[in-house]
């Protein structure tokens, strides 16, 4: 009896080791994130972990994360987009001008701005998909064109202020329902409900997958490890949400981001479009012979990227409550870095949405932490550059080790 338990335990250990060995990359991202958190907490005497700052950090993450979602598709499909920073600035200024100068309502502004992003995507997608100009070139050109257009549009002026409804997209929080309704801080009931739903949803989904895999005789984690995993992830989710539940609640921008993540995780895993994008990036010739319309899918990728850039433009402008000529500067670098840190392969065909979100958190934590420490911007750039190289080096070396 005791021997069989021993045997089981050592088998579990073995599997745990294998799991760790073969999923180092995924765990490494989380470990890096936690490591960065610890370092900044120590260096800032705990300010980094204060609810106020964490809430701020999430707001800072949101627009890079929104861009990263689209950038995963772009890079998995074998392309790159260098223009997202300029498009964020341009669409943001467009939105601000519509509201400030022409008095359009927030809803109209949102619709038109997303539309503008999509149209820009059509423009770039046309050159990349149908005229076969490399994405690197087209979006490098786009980076210049839309930065120029932004400066022309704003005339170098700051455009402000926006209506409260618009500002809420980047600064607001979902409302409180029953408890503390008058307070601006403290237990937030609606956020609590959202958190519970998210955690329950996660557990339900894991169980369902496990049962399905079992039915097909696929390998599953042994029960103790499975339970450990569920508990660990649920705990992390809870930590993530508790920051918001106990402070001002979940920001609208994070709600938008979560919806996007769910949507795009679904798209990448369960739709023909998602599968086609991975196939095109993985082997273009094979994709072509399999009857995949590469041109159309490439166009779709860039339209999505454009629309998401427009969305990020809205969120960013709303957060600053103004549009300026320098808005969105270098966002493309943070975004691309986030995607690579999140384990997406440079050669295309491989990468996950969730990884990119973690990557975005890493980049935003670096920005936020160094900002708290008053590191000057030139050193911020140097540190971020070094981290990017290290992260991708680690990714590549762990990839070849278990090939």
């Amino acid at each position, binding site marked *: 009896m005791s021997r069989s338990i021993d045997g089981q335990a050592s088998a579990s250990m073995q599997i745990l080791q294998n799991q760790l060995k073969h999923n180092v990359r995924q765990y490494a991202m989380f470990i890096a994130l936690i490591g960065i958190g610890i370092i900044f907490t120590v260096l800032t005497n705990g300010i980094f972990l204060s609810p106020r700052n964490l809430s701020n950090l999430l707001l800072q993450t949101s627009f890079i994360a929104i861009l990263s979602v689209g950038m995963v598709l772009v890079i998995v499909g074998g392309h790159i987009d260098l223009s997202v920073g300029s498009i964020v600035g341009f669409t943001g200024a467009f939105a601000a001008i519509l509201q400030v100068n022409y008095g359009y309502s927030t809803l109209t502004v949102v619709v038109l701005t997303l539309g503008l992003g999509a149209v820009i995507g059509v423009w770039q997608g046309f050159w990349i998909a149908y005229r076969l100009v490399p994405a690197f070139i087209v979006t490098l050109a786009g980076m210049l064109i839309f930065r120029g257009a932004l400066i022309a549009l704003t005339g170098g002026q700051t455009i402000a202020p926006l209506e409260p409804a618009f500002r809420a997209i980047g600064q607001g929080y979902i409302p409180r329902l029953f408890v503390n309704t008058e307070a601006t801080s403290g237990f937030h009931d609606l956020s609590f409900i959202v958190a519970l739903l998210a955690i329950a949803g996660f557990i339900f989904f894991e169980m369902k997958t496990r049962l399905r895999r079992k039915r097909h005789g696929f390998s599953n984690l042994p029960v103790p490890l499975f339970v450990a995993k569920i508990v660990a992830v649920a705990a992390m989710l809870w930590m993530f949400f508790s920051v918001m539940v106990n402070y001002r609640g979940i920001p609208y921008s994070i709600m938008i981001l979560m919806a996007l993540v769910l949507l795009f995780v679904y798209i990448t895993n369960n739709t023909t479009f998602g599968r086609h994008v991975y196939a095109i990036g993985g082997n273009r010739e*094979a994709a072509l*012979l399999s009857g995949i319309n590469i041109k159309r899918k490439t166009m779709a990728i860039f339209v999505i990227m454009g629309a998401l850039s427009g969305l990020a433009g809205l969120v960013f402008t709303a957060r600053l409550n103004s549009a300026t000529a320098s808005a969105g500067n270098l966002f493309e670098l943070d975004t691309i870095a986030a995607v690579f840190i999140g384990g997406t392969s440079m050669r295309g065909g491989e990468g996950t949405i969730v990884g990119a979100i973690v990557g975005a958190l890493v980049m935003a934590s670096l920005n936020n932490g160094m900002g708290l420490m008053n590191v000057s911007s030139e050193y911020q750039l140097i540190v971020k550059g070094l981290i990017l190289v290290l992260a991708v080096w680690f990714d590549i070396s762990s990839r070849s080790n278990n090939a």
Partner: protein
Amino acid sequence: MSDHILEMKNIVKEFPGVRALDNVSFQVKPGEIHALVGENGAGKSTLIKVLSGVHPNGSYQGQIHVDGQEQRFLHIKDSENVGIAVIYQELGLVPQMSVVENLFLGAEKGRAYRIDWDVANTEALKYLKELRLDVSPKALIRNLGIGKQQLVEIAKALAKKARILVLDEPTAALNEQDSANLLSILRELRDRGVTCIYISHKLGEVLEIADTVTVLRDGKTIGTRDMHGPERLDEAGIVSLMVGRELTERFPRVEHTPGEVVLQVRDWSVQDPENSEKRIVDNVSFDVRKGEILGVAGLMGAGRTELMMSLFGAYGKRLSGTMLLNGQQLNIRSPLDAIRAGLAYVTEDRKGKGLVLGMDVRENTSLAALKYLSRFSIINRLEEIRRAEEYVKSLRIKTPSIEQKVKNLSGGNQQKVVLGKWMLTNPKVLILDEPTRGIDIGAKFEIYNIMNDLVEKGVCIVMISSELPEVLGMSDRVIVIHQGRLNGELHWSEATQEKTMLLATGGTEK
């Protein structure tokens, strides 16, 4: 003991879910040609990767001795330093560079950082001459045929002073003439003292050239036989060691009764992408009938692949031609159109064009048929899994699960995945381009049976093959292509190797 130049002892190599090598022992005598044979997935390529340091010391158990010395290779460089050179099926040459640049890549001639091109060229000429390879050292690799590229690889190995030359399926993509040439060169090298390890599924070649044969099955050594001694094996003997049973028939011919014409191709011409004056396919017309296998014979480079790819909407510029399917005119501009119309094309280049290597078996199997496995663009996962499992079972694909990435499958099993992928699209006309390249003899037989089943179900099959016995053994009718033109048609009962070769080389009947 050390009358062996190479000894691998008790090698065990595991991948997640697979024990690829299970206590393999392998001994090679100096100056012999030692053939390594076995079914797809038996572990041949893995053994070679262990030997060459691709799988570094520590990732496997067991020992490697060269000249009686234990070796622990961590990199390919380490094994090259003791004189082991491996030539993989996917050649490792840089196509944009010249022969001489490739020959000395990484070991450039000259002092310090300056390359001495005179020395390099003279030496290159010497190696090329040894291999009776008549090309200029300045020729670009991409302009050479595959057979010559293969020889350049060998020259490169010799330039590195290789004493043990390992060739993994070197003739899989070669035509008969180039293969014969390669074999005779290997013999010469042996006579000069180079030891050669030779992996092939072409047992005829093995019998012709091997001094010793080692058979692997399921990751175990089944036996090593001296081909000059009393235990020498014949083809049937090797096969029965390989598959563990007797295989009496090579080609399961079934009498088909061809029905009405399904596919009609008329006056099909395609422009040569290299030279717009020329036609790579020139005015070809043929019919395919319901319930028959149409063989397409010809030499390599005759334009067969180009013809089929162009019918499938995936090749260059069509100059003329019409295609009718069941009497309906088809207007195919892309593979998507072709698949919709009911055509399927199994490419000869499975890694380059057939598979997404980083995807798993399930995703590759469903890739061309996602339309039928989805509603409103949403993939029906259960159905997808079910179909993938069905094909893994019916094609006997050797994989730990449908979640295995196809890059981790052995070559032959990858080929079966490509086949399954196209069967899943439920085609009316299935075009097979070298369907059994790199496939072991047992699996070939299975594929032939599958072809017969499909024909039974009313599918028409068009099969390009450069292996004459296969074309003659399986086809109901054979058309022969020579330099882009149709040069004759034979019914199977009248098709002989001689007649077919004559047509393939441009001769005319009688």
